[in-house]
Every structure is written in C-alpha cells, then in structure tokens.
C-alpha cells in the first residue's frame, strides 16, 4: 500500500491553497500520470496557514522543486485584482521558507539546491481568477456552462440588487449539475477531473499543463 510518506518522497511538491485546489491538482496529476509530483494542501490564507510548516514536513529536505498554486481572490478589491499585491504576497510566503521566486508565474527560480515557482489560476479571459473560473473555462460541456451562467445572472436579476456572492462557484456547480453525466451532479472539482467533466487539453489549461509537465520532468 502506498502511504502518504511514500508520496512525500517525490522530488516535486505542489503546494495547493485550500482543499478544492488540492483535490483538483491531485486528480489532474493522476490523470496526466505525473508521478514525480506530490500534492499537498497548505490551507487558504484566511485559514490556519500551513505554508511555513512545509519545511518541517517529513522528506522536505529531499525535495528538488517546490511550486505553489493559488488563486487571486483574496487580493481583489471591489472585484478588481491587484496583481502586484498577489505577487508580493507569494514572494513573501516563499521568503518565509527561505526560497525565492521570480516576478512571473509559471517559471522556476533556483535557490540553493531547490527550484521554486508558482501558478496563479486564471479565468476565461486569461486574467487572474479562481479555481472555479478556470474550471468553468475548461468544462467539457459548454452548453451547460452557458446555461449555468444564464441561471445565476437570471437569479441575480430577480433579487432586486442583492447580488449572489461567490458567483463563480455557483455557476460552476450548476454547470456540473447540468452536465449530462450523472456523476457530475454535486461533483467537486477534483471529481470533475476524474469523471471527465473537464478538458485538460483545453487551450485555457495549456500553460498550466505545460508547467506541470516541466516540473514533473525537472528532477
């Protein structure tokens, strides 16, 4: 039986911000058979922050590549994301574990014996966004996505200005529910990957997939 300790012996660690992100990338890596990458959840910025604990984790000293993946939701003000503040926050987190990263995502920087980098999730326009934005843009069933977007917009119109929070999450899960496959009803993003509800060959996923391939082949 493969234990968590065995997985953590992998030379590349992908630190995911939050549970959904963790399960999404874990399933993506499984699907793409990237066996050098170990995925772990470092929790969201507003939760108990486990990022600093990464260097204390068993087998950290034997890693070669550390990559952090997160969205940009926390740095948004009135819906507009401050990109510089996202990068600053990421750099500071890496500095807390004595690693440095560059100014751009999806590239690796050397610090001593390790390489480090980060992924910022993007929305359908290619701008920084959330995991749900990304999943909406790569969902297999485009009609279901269109219907989900229309549904949320319709509900918003009916609520006399009381706009639904986390619209991206509502749209995504309605889109999954409207997908023809039964297994997609109530699916989480990771399950959607496993059940074939998301297209990992999609143009919008290309740069992330290319980067995952790079880090998997790095060691």
């Amino acid at each position, binding site marked *: 039986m493969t234990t968590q300790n065995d997985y953590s012996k992998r030379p590349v660690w992908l630190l995911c911000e939050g549970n959904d992100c963790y399960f999404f990338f874990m399933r993506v890596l499984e699907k793409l058979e990237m066996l050098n990458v170990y995925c772990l959840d470092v929790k969201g910025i507003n939760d108990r922050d486990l990022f600093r604990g990464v*260097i204390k984790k068993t087998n950290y000293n*034997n890693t070669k590549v550390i990559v952090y993946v997160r969205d940009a939701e926390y740095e948004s003000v009135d819906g507009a994301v401050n990109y510089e503040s996202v990068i600053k926050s990421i750099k500071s987190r890496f500095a807390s574990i004595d690693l440095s990263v560059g100014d751009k995502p999806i590239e690796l920087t050397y610090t001593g014996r390790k390489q480090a980098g980060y992924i910022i999730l993007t929305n359908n326009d290619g701008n920084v966004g959330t995991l749900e934005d990304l999943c909406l843009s790569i969902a297999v069933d485009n009609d279901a996505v269109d219907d989900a977007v229309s549904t949320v917009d319709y509900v918003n119109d009916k609520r006399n200005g009381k706009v639904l929070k986390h619209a991206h999450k509502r749209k995504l899960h309605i889109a999954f529910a409207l997908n023809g496959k039964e297994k997609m009803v109530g699916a989480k993003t990771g399950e959607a990957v496993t059940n074939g509800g998301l297209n990992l060959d999609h143009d919008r996923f290309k740069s992330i997939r290319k980067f995952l391939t790079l880090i998997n082949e790095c060691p």
Partner: protein
Amino acid sequence: MIEKMSVKNFRGLANVALSFAPFTLIGGANNVGKTSVLEAVFLLYGHRSPLVFQQLRSFRNASAPVAEARELWENIFNDYDLSKYLSISAVRDKNSESLEVYRDDSYDIAGELTQIPQDAKLPTSSLGLSYPLKVLYKYGKKETQFHLAINTDAMGTNIFARGNNNSPAANIGNIPTVTFSSDRLLNTPHLYDLLGKISRNKQKDKAVNVLKDIDGRINDIVLGEKQQIYLDVTGLIEMIPLTFMGTGVSNVLYWTALALSDSAKIILIDEIENGIHYSSMQSVMEKLCDIGERHDCQIIATTHSIDCVRSFSKCSEKRISYIRLERSLETGEVSPVVIDAQLLPEMLESDWEVR
C-alpha cells in the same frame, strides 16, 4: 533542565545540535539516532560510573560478553572509530557543561596499575588490550578528568577507572540523576523502592490515578513480600502481580514513580508508546507532562507512533517540543527538524506526516 545539547561523534551522530523542552518527543526513521540522543544524555550525566559503558550496551540488549576488549566502548564512537573525539556539550539551567571522551594512548596505564593494592590482583600481562580513554567533564570553569581502561584476564573483561571520578571533587555541576527506560529494561526492585518512597510521601494515589487511565479497574498498588508489587483490580478476588499486567502498566507506573519520588531529574524513555493502547495515550501523556512539571522532572522520549505524537501535541504547549531526526540522503548526516507546539497540531490535523 537540559535546554540544549550538541553531540559530536557519538554512535551514529556525527554532529547534531538539539534543543529540549520540559517534555520532548523525538521521532524519525529507524536507525536515525533517536535512542542515541537519549544515550548521549545518559552518558553526559552518568559518566562518573565506569559501568556507564556496560549500561549503554545493555540499552541495546547487548548483554553477551564482548569478543574483543575494544568492543566494550568502540560502539559509542561514530563509525566505530576509536580515534574520533567524542564530545557532548549542553546548556543546563543556563550553565554550560561538556563531556569529552577520547582515546589517550599516552596514558601510562601500566604505571598506574603498579600502584593498585595487591587485592586488585591485576595480571599486567593482559594490558596490551587496554584502550585507555580520557574522560573530561567541564561545568562552567570547573573541570574534572579521569582515565578508563579495559583489562581482560581469565575472569573476563573489566573496566578500570583511574582518576578522581568518584571523589567529591568530581561531582562538580550538581549532576542531575538520570534514568533510561525502555520496555526491555524494567527494574522491578528499583520500582519497588520507588513505590515505597511515594507511599511514604502519600503520593501513591497519584500513581494509581495514572494507571486508571490505562485500566479503569485498577484501584490500588500494594507492596508485597519479596519485593513483589501487586495491583488491586476490581472484579478479582486476589491481587495481581504487576508483572502479569502487561508492559504498558509497568512502564507507566515506573515513569510516574520516578517523577513522584523525585528520584530522577531527567527520565529518558525509549519508544514511549510500547504497550500503551492509543485510547489511553492522551491521558497518560498529559499526566506525565503534569507530574513532570510539578516535580521538576524533565522527560525526553522517542516514538514511532502517530497516536503518540497526536496525544503529545495536546499537552500544554508551553512545555512540549517535538523533534524529528532526519538523515540527509546526500551527506548521510543527521539533523533535527523542530516542530513547534503551535504548528504541530495544525500539521497533524491536516494529516501531514511528521514522524
């Protein structure tokens, strides 16, 4: 309390520095040096006794006679290399101390032995295998030193100490009493004495309370004839000898009695989880932590058990520290990873491996 310790060339530890809390738990893979850390503490405070090397061997279950005299202490040197310079330095109660042990062939063991009284009956013909060691202990600006040598004759292999190790002057630094405990080494007569002491001090109820966490049917501890220890267990007509109650009960009673009787200032426990069911672990840990605090007794323990680490993480965070020893795949060197008491529960809650 020992706060920091640096160990060089002792057993598998080439060079490692550690910090200790009042209650420290040490994890790590097999053969990484967890037990060696405990033994280093034991050697540091037990060095005045020539028997310390035999005791160190017994901790490893090496009770068989050595085939060659040098085996008696070459195993304490890193890489079994007697030419290495073994040192253990520490900060205890804010004072620095160190123990240095090294082979000293310049020492004239034969010259010393000629002064030994006749009743020692030492055949000088066997002195070729003496392997003299110099032992130097420093506490602040004071120091004491002596030599140890091995003598092999028809009666077997013996260690002889020459110097002031047993003189009152050698007891500089008020060396703390230290006890090494593992489930292979329960010393029943010693436990009997400890229980006698805590009975006199009216502390026995506390020990019974700790045992109740393991088995709620235990009502009392009774000292019987011929140094037999019995337990009064609900539902049984006769008292049960402690030895019939399992390893966990005996071990926990021993540690508790050591602390309650103020008989050990430092308790070293190898594989603390042995014999203790996971459901009892937390209360045992918490009570040990509490008793240690009340009796100014430091506990340093090793473990492989995640249940043990989880239980430990729930003890008072001001008093605990978890250390994992890791061996580098590249250099082979062992280094400690200290996980602070705030981070440890968070890592465990996320099912992160910390052992």
